[in-house]
C-alpha cells in the first residue's frame, strides 16, 4: 500500500489534533472533538468539511456534454449552463458504478462540464471513461490532486461564504446551481450543494489557496458556534437526510431502481451504458431501500439482518444513533414487496432481535425558510 494522499488541509487537521483515518486512500479527519457536537453545529449553525478527497474531473472539448451523456444516466446536453445534477454511472448490466454530480457551464467555457465522483471510485471511473472514449472532441483532466474542496453547510453557511467573494452574492445562487467566480481574489468554483441535508455551499479552489480559505472560514464560523466537522459527522448528517453512500446503500450489484434512485435515470433522448437493462429493471426492482426507526437505544449497524415474521428479508446498509432525533435510525436494503411505512420488522443485533418501524425517508428535513 502506498502512503495515503494528503489534502491541502491535512496539516491543519493534524495541527488541531483531529483524529485522522485512512479513507479511500486519503488521510482524512474522522472527527475533531466529538461527532455529536460537530453534527449539531452543522444542523444549528455551520459545519466546515474538507472534502478534497472527492474526485473532480474536468471535461474539455466541444463534445464534452454529448460524450458524458453516453456514460451517465441522465441527459447532459440539454442541461442549462449553471445547473448541477445528481446522476449515476452504471455498467452494462445496470449496476451502479458510482453516484456523481454533473456541473454544466456555458458552452463558451474552457470547461463545459465537470464531474464530481466518490473518492473510493475515482480510479475506477477514470478507467471506465478511458475504456469508453470515443473519437469525439472530448478530453478530461483529473483535477483532484491539484484542487481543494471545502463544504460549508448549515443554516448559517451562506453568510460565512459571502466575505470570500467579490463578484457574487452567494445568497443569489439557487439550490443545485454552480458558478465559476473569484474566491479571495483567485479563480474558484462555488456551488449551492452539499451532503448534509442542510443549505450550504461547496467551494473549489487551487491547493495553494485552500488553507487561506479554510482559515478564514474557521475563524468566522467560530463566531456563530460552528467549526470544522469530520467525516464522522458527515456520515450521520447524510444518513439523517437519507442520502445514499456508495459502498453501503449503493453497489455494482444494485440498479438505481433497487435503491429508489429512479429519478436520476432518464431514458428519453439519449443513449447510455446500461440503458437496455435498466429499462427492464425499471418496473420490477429486486430490492427496496427503506428507512428504519429502531425501537430502544441500540443502533443497528451495516450488515445486521432485517427480518419479517422470522424470515430474513434483507440487511441494514447504514445505521447510527441519530444525533438530531436522539433515537437509532438505519437504512436497509430488503427483498420482495416493499414494506409499508409503519410496518414492524425486526433487526438481528448480534444475536438478539430488536423491533424496528419502517419509516418514511428522509428521517430529517431541514425547516423551510
Amino acid at each position, binding site marked *: 500500500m502506498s502512503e495515503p494522499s494528503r489534502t491541502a488541509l491535512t496539516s491543519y487537521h493534524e495541527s488541531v489534533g483531529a483524529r485522522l483515518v485512512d479513507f479511500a486512500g486519503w488521510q482524512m479527519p*474522522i472527527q475533531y472533538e466529538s*461527532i455529536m457536537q460537530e453534527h449539531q453545529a452543522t444542523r444549528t449553525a455551520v459545519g466546515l468539511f474538507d472534502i478534497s478527497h472527492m474526485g473532480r474531473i474536468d471535461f474539455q472539448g466541444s463534445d464534452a456534454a454529448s460524450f458524458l451523456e453516453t456514460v451517465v444516466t441522465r441527459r447532459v446536453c440539454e442541461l442549462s449552463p449553471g445547473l448541477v445534477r445528481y446522476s449515476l454511472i452504471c455498467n452494462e448490466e445496470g449496476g451502479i458504478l458510482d453516484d456523481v454530480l454533473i456541473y454544466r457551464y456555458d458552452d463558451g467555457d474552457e470547461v463545459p462540464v465537470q464531474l464530481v465522483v466518490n473518492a473510493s471510485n475515482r480510479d475506477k471511473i477514470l478507467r471506465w471513461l478511458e475504456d469508453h472514449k470515443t473519437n469525439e472532441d472530448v478530453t478530461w483532466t483529473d483535477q483532484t490532486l491539484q484542487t481543494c474542496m471545502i463544504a460549508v453547510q448549515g443554516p448559517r453557511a451562506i453568510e460565512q461564504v459571502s466575505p470570500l467573494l467579490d463578484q457574487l452574492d452567494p445568497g443569489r445562487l439557487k439550490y443545485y446551481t454552480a458558478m465559476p467566480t473569484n474566491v479571495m481574489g483567485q479563480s474558484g468554483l462555488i456551488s449551492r450543494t452539499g451532503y448534509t441535508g442542510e443549505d450550504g455551499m461547496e467551494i473549489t479552489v487551487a491547493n495553494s489557496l485552500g488553507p487561506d480559505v479554510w482559515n478564514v472560514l474557521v475563524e468566522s464560523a467560530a463566531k456563530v458556534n460552528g467549526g470544522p466537522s469530520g467525516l464522522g459527522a458527515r456520515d450521520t448528517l447524510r444518513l439523517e437526510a437519507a442520502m445514499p453512500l456508495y459502498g453501503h446503500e449503493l453497489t455494482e450489484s444494485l440498479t438505481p431502481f433497487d435503491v429508489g434512485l429512479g429519478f436520476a435515470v432518464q431514458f428519453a433522448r439519449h443513449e447510455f451504458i446500461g440503458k437496455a437493462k435498466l429499462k427492464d429493471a425499471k418496473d420490477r426492482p429486486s430490492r427496496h431501500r427503506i428507512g428504519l426507526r429502531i425501537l430502544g437505544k*441500540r*443502533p443497528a449497524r451495516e450488515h445486521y439482518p432485517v427480518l419479517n415474521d422470522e424470515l430474513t428479508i434483507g440487511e441494514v446498509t447504514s445505521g*447510527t*444513533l441519530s444525533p438530531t432525533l436522539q433515537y*437509532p435510525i438505519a437504512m436497509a436494503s430488503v427483498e420482495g414487496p416493499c414494506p409499508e411505512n409503519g410496518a414492524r420488522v425486526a433487526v438481528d443485533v*448480534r444475536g438478539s432481535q430488536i423491533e424496528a418501524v419502517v419509516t418514511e425517508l428522509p428521517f430529517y428535513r431541514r425547516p423551510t425558510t
Partner: protein
Amino acid sequence: MNPETLLYAESHEWLHAEDDAVGKVATIGISAFAIEELADIVFINLPDVGTEVNAGQEFGEIESVKAVSDLYAPVSGEIIEVNSSLPDNLETLNQSAYVEGWMIKIRMRDESELAKLMDFAAYQKQCEQ
C-alpha cells in the same frame, strides 16, 4: 478510585481487587483513555448478575456513534453486581471513569490471574504506542 493504583487489561478494562469475607472481588470498568478513544458513546450492554465469565471472555458491548466494541472480563468468576444505572446515564463514563463509571463486580475464581494484568505504568506505555 485512583487510576494509578488499578490494574489494566490490554483491551482497556481497569480492575480493582478487594478482599471480602469469602475471597477476592474485582470491580471492573474501562479506562478514561478507552472512553476518549470511543468518543460519543451511545449504548452499553451489561450482563445479568449471576453470569459466569472466563478471563478474556466478553461480558458486554459498548457502542459509539461509529462503532461497536466488546467488553472483556480481565478475570474469571461470577458476576455478582452490575452497575444498572450506567446504561441510562452514559455521561457518567466521561465524568467518572474510575468511580461512578464502574460496570461489573466479579467474584474471582483464581487470584493468580491478577498477576497477568498490567500496572498503571505499563498500561500508560501501551496507550502511548
